[in-house]
């Protein structure tokens, strides 16, 4: 049989109901009708029962047995292996439950792999070795089909009369377009006007009946200056209900107790709007990075840099927390702080600029 191309489906069909044909010949006729020719077809083992064939069969059977055992193992492990969580040291006693997940994965994986390798070996080694050619019949439809379809579509358009009825055409557009709008209008329920959400934080006195808002630790303890060591820092939150939760995710503040020399430098470098924002050697910056909003909390005591771990922006604490490296552009807003008569820190006012990442109308 040559590989030269000819459209076999144009040949005369063979009568398959004729009882004289063998089964394979019927198959070949089916192939021919689909434009398929056999280039090469031979059984994997023309001589049945050779040692090689038996070996392969044994291997495949072995794979399936492994698959079954694996699956059974999976069910057994699932039902009977200890699994409940307990603290267990690496390799320590009582750590059987730590192996529950690995054992499940192992047994299931083995079972599935056994089945897969068995089936694949069967396909590769036991199925007939064949190579066939099928015609693609690619490209566009026959010319006459195109002509007919073109005519049908053109006729249909004419039948609707849309071309000859411009008023109806316009009316239809006028009606359909707004309906499309009506379909997406309910998505408007998603819209929540930002208002001044992005311009105020939990430290705004409006959260406290107009009174300045104190600073507190996560557990609610109000912060006093003697709670922070020199060279130390704490994370402080607005002292309002839920102040330390995600409801006021824009408010966390890093309160740093600088050394004398650094505090002096910070005071000298302060922008005009931040003059007096420090209280002695204590300085408070918004923790929310002005790049994309991660908490910039890696305070380096000696270099006085605040590193944000997400994209490595670095802010210089002794210079208004302005960015000195990395993709951040704006300084971390400073919270103006003071200490009240009871000795607790409080925010004199809200931050003087919006915290966090920039947005169009931030200005």
């Amino acid at each position, binding site marked *: 049989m040559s590989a030269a191309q000819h459209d076999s489906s144009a040949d005369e069909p063979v009568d398959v109901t004729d009882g004289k044909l063998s089964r394979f010949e019927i198959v070949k006729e089916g192939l021919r009708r689909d434009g398929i020719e056999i280039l090469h077809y031979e059984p994997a083992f023309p001589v049945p029962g050779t040692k090689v064939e038996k070996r392969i069969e044994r291997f495949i059977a072995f794979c399936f047995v492994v698959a079954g055992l694996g699956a059974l193992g999976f069910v057994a492990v699932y039902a009977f292996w200890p699994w409940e969580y307990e*603290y267990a040291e*690496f390799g320590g006693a009582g750590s059987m439950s*730590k192996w529950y*997940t690995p054992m499940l994965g192992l047994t299931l994986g083995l079972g599935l792999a056994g089945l897969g390798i068995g089936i694949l070996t069967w396909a590769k080694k036991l199925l007939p070795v064949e190579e066939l050619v099928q015609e693609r019949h690619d490209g566009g439809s026959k010319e006459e089909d195109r002509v007919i379809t073109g005519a049908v579509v053109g006729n249909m358009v004419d039948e609707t009369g849309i071309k000859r009825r411009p008023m109806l055409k316009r009316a239809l557009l006028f009606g359909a377009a707004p309906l499309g709008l009506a379909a997406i209008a309910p998505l408007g329920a998603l819209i929540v006007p930002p208002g001044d959400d992005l311009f105020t934080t939990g430290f705004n006195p409006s959260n406290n009946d107009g009174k300045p808002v104190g600073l507190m630790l996560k557990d609610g303890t109000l912060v006093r200056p003697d709670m922070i060591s020199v*060279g130390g820092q704490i*994370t402080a939150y607005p002292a309002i209900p839920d102040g330390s939760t995600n409801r006021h995710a824009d408010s966390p503040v890093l309160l740093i107790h600088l050394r004398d020399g650094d505090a002096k430098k910070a005071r000298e470098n302060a922008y005009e709007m931040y003059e007096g924002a420090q209280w002695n050697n204590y300085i408070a910056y918004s923790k929310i990075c002005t790049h994309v909003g991660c908490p910039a909390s890696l305070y*380096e*005591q000696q*270099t006085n840099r605040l590193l944000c771990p997400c994209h490595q922006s670095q802010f210089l604490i002794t210079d208004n927390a302005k960015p000195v490296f990395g993709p951040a552009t704006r300084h971390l807003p400073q919270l103006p702080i003071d200490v009240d008569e009871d000795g607790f820190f409080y925010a004199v006012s809200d931050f003087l600029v919006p915290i966090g990442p920039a947005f169009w109308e931030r200005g």
Partner: protein
Amino acid sequence: MAAPTRRRSGWRRRLGAFARFVGALALVGGVYTGFAPGIYADEADESFQALVAQGEELYNNSCISCHGVNAAGVDGRGPSLIGVGSASVEFQVNSGRMPMAMQETQAERKPPVFTPEEATALAAYIQTLGGGPEALPTEVVEAMVADVMTDPYSVAEGGDLFRVNCSSCHGYATGGGALSSGAYAPSLAGVPADQIYEAMLTGPQNMPVFADNQLEPEEKAQIIAYVEYLNTDQNPGGWGLGRFGPSTEGLAIFLVGISTLAIATLWIAGKS
């Protein structure tokens, strides 16, 4: 005439008074001796002085070249140690960071040069020079931590404190992290409890200081307990891939998953 009053003779009276006086002295002296430190104080004083002297000798042999006479510091080589406290010294020396192998951005942990006793001696010496945060004995810290470990709620509070104060530099899984320009926060795996305690207390190099007014000893113990828990608890999900997170997971899917399956496709199908 009245019955004759027996009168002690003058010298007996004086003797009795004298005896009573001596008795009272002996009583007071005895009570005092019983309660006062007495000769033990002398011994303790002596052993402490010996420790400080040993520390001074060690210092003068090893540390003076960078930290100067009387720990006053040497410009460009080593900072002053006045006021750093015994806790700082114990941390730096027991973790092997000091003596530093070379001048670099950050002292790194390495096998300690001095024994723990020598470290204590150095610490005592530095403490006498300028005071500062004092180290707690190892057993005390370990006892506090063991106490926390008995109560999961306490360990959990330690975790909460860890995440607010520590994870930003040391990582959720305590594996450490990079800081700017070559500095780094080291991994906490396998670090002894007292060293973690001392590090929090003293704020070595770029680490902020978490003195006892900020994190009470109890809270420090909670944090240490959480760190130890995390580092000793076996991963329930199999091999932890270093607990680095998505970076090693992504690497694993290509090196293990895709590679295995790509090799499988080479086996399954043709090659030409």
